[in-house]
């Protein structure tokens, strides 16, 4: 018999961390614990329902077409390399722009440094051509630093599809890491927010623990972590519902 799962019926444990951070751990209960008469028999014929049908979070979000956003619900023009044809991107996440201000400030300071040295005439002993070459080299290094930092931010992404959680890490120019887990393998989801900036700008870390003991996905400094946790939870419930209703492909 099909069942309805209500996200409010799950165990939700909130703990206060010593550093002031709040941590929410949501444990997913077995579907057998909840049995309610279903009114969903009409959906049995469908293999996949639209995400708005079962997700409160996605109902409240509008489609985002800006590829430079940090929180992109249902991006219509985005795909990733290992995406299956039937798989739909539900949410694409990057680190919150506020968490990137550090390298932006460093780049501005580095760009302004030659102005400081020009007043001291630090390279006064060198001919003009050498001074020019060193100044150009310096600005090229700054441009390289900005470009690499931007690429790290842009390609360091977390994708939630209706089937999987995917973490693509662009750690450096020479190293890339891509890992994924099926949604029905997720066991624990933890959202952590701590510190002034995270509280003010509403971003934090979401940790996803899969059934494999060592595999843990860590989405660092993503916007609206509580919403992300709620969405993953809704996706887990939908996966379980699909399994019960025999809508699994």
């Amino acid at each position: 018999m099909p069942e309805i799962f209500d996200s409010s019926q799950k165990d939700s444990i909130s703990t206060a961390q010593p550093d002031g951070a709040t941590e929410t751990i949501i444990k997913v209960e077995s579907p057998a614990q909840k049995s309610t008469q279903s009114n969903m028999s009409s959906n049995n014929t469908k293999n996949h329902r639209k995400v708005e049908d079962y997700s409160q979070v996605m109902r409240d979000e509008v489609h985002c077409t800006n590829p430079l956003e940090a929180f992109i619900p249902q991006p219509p023009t985005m795909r990733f390399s290992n995406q299956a044809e039937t798989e739909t991107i539900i949410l694409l996440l990057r680190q919150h722009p506020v968490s990137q201000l550090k390298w932006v400030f460093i780049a501005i300071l580095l760009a302004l440094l030659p102005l400081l040295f020009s007043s001291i005439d630090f390279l006064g002993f060198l001919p003009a051509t050498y001074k020019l070459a060193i100044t150009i080299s310096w600005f090229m290094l700054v441009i390289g630093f900005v470009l690499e930092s931007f690429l790290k931010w842009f390609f360091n992404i977390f994708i939630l599809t209706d089937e999987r959680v995917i973490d693509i890490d662009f750690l450096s120019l020479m190293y890339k890491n891509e890992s994924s887990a099926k949604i029905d393998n997720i066991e624990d989801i933890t959202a952590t927010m701590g510190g002034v900036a995270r509280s003010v700008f509403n971003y934090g870390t979401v940790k996803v623990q899969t059934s494999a003991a060592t595999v843990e996905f860590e989405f660092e400094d993503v916007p609206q972590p509580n919403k992300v946790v709620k969405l993953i939870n809704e996706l887990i419930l939908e996966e379980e519902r699909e399994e019960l209703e025999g809508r699994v492909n």
Partner: protein
Amino acid sequence: MKEELTKDSMFAILLNSFMNTTTDSPLAFESGIVLDLFKYAILIGAFLYVIFAFIVTRQISLMKNTLITSFSPVLTLVGWLHLLISIMVFIIFLLIL
């Protein structure tokens, strides 16, 4: 008198061989050897930067296949422009130094 002139001219020859002719600074620090060191350091740095720019271009082309977005063509263009500028800077350094 003739002996002194010879000494002076020898000293001038030695000094000229040591000093770089492109500079008119009176400091001995600006000797040709030191300037050559600067020159080769800058040129090697610029060459390494060209390699870095090339790696950036390759990485962009790899990553744009990993994540396909409407912004990918812009990033590709930026990567190629960056490589082009770095090559131009290297060539300019070769010419002016």
